């Protein structure tokens, strides 16, 4: 089969077959990242603009490396150094970038739906690199790739995702993608951090972390965003760490071959203890490594695609 999406806006729009194709493509591309010359000429002459309205190190670097390994020209635009600070609207910025004829815009924005808004107004492909509390599809796909490598399958696995579910675009993208792949998703966090009604999207909700982690195949910890809601939704960080932090004792409740994931950056000692983050069950750095391969796959599939069902 071939890939028929012009844009990657979220995992909600992807079918199970799409996800399998992306993961298989990424798996093949991993070989390039282990070569001495880490470059193939596939996207030669294509221009990719990384348009980032929110701070990001991992995702932006990962997309930039992915583009460069495919020989595309990648340009980074960050809100703090661009005309956005001079009051330009999103649409005007996009139209101006469009006039320079890029092939793909990789976009991160603090507003949910910003990439969807742009996708309707420009001709090039849009890849969502995180929009508000909505979706972060490339993160969910690299999570799936990492799980599939470690477990050899996805179907039937139980994943516990713990933390601020309400504000997590990673949790939402993971939920859409994982349920499509036949996985069971458990969401766990304090009542202030789990959106009401999320069960209707197929998640099981827990407030007691021990219950959520028990017999899980995968435990994924989300970052408490100290700079934002951390202050209003929690009494104290110490209490949060005690109730919702992943420590060795809690991890022992999960299956013996459990893997520990985290989208980063880590708050060591808050949601995850250093002992667990550095431990043998942790695949956090494998996630980062797979991120490059997954983003190469997305760029390749979008750039070469036949967009008849865009």
């Amino acid at each position, binding site marked *: *089969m071939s*890939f028929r999406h012009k844009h990657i806006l979220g995992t909600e729009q992807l079918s199970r077959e799409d996800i399998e194709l992306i993961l*298989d493509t990424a798996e093949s591309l991993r070989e390039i990242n282990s070569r001495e010359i880490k470059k193939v000429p*596939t996207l030669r002459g294509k221009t990719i603009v990384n348009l980032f309205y929110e701070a990001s190190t991992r995702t932006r670097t990962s997309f930039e490396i992915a583009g460069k390994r495919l020989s595309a020209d990648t340009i980074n635009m960050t809100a703090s150094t661009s005309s956005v600070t001079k009051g330009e609207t999103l649409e005007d910025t996009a139209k101006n970038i469009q006039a320079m004829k890029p092939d793909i815009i990789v976009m991160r924005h603090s507003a949910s739906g910003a990439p969807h808004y742009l996708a309707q107004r420009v001709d090039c492909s849009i890849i969502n690199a995180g929009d508000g509390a909505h979706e972060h599809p490339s993160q969910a796909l690299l999570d799936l790739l990492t799980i599939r490598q470690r477990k050899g399958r996805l179907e039937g696995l139980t994943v516990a995702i713990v933390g601020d579910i309400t504000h997590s675009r990673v949790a939402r993208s993971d939920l859409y993608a994982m349920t499509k792949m036949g996985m069971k998703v458990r969401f766990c966090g304090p009542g202030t951090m789990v959106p009401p009604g999320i069960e209707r999207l197929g998640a099981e909700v827990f407030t007691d972390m021990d219950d959520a982690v028990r017999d899980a195949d995968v435990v994924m910890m989300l970052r408490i965003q100290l700079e934002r809601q951390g202050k209003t939704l929690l009494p104290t960080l110490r209490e949060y760490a005690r109730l919702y932090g992943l420590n060795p004792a809690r991890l022992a409740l999960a299956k013996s071959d459990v893997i520990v994931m985290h989208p980063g950056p880590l708050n060591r000692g808050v949601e995850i203890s250093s002992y667990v983050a550095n431990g043998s069950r942790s695949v956090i750095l494998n996630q980062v490594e797979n991120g490059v391969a997954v983003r190469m796959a997305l760029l*390749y599939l*979008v750039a*070469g*695609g*036949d967009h008849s069902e865009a």
Partner: protein
Amino acid sequence: MASNETVILDSAGIGRALTRIAHEILERNKGTEGLVLIGIRSGGDHLARILGQRITQIEGEKIPLGTIDITMYRDDLGSRGSLPLGKTEIPFPLDGRKVVLIDDVLFTGRTIRAAMDALVDIGRPKNIQLATLIDRGHRELPIRADYVGRNVPTSREEKILVEFAADNNPVEVRLVKP
């Protein structure tokens, strides 16, 4: 089989052609020293495996076997859509090796161009030779095979199908008229 199809080689014919090519490779390279076989996905990788077995039978020595996927090196991205990728598996260094590249059908030569570009990104072979089961002509690039199973004059509109069984062994080669 449809009436517009002709069998050019049956499985015995393919086997004899591969045996001859194995002898020719050994003769030209004076044995297996520094020799590696790399099959182009998909089709060439299966033929490379069989050639490897023949060479082992003849010389009593195993030679390294690799496969290469050239999708990322194609020059027609966008006009055909994103094709699914296969894996490139070359678990040995190429530097200084004599590489025999193996494809099932040699046609325009563009696949071979892509495969050579892919190889030189991975290492610096001493030389690259080309073996193909069928050479059907119509080259668009200055590329020529060193070892050919069968030369088949074709028109551009005709197709050559190399059919493999479920166990990846070749069954027959057919010429399909439009």
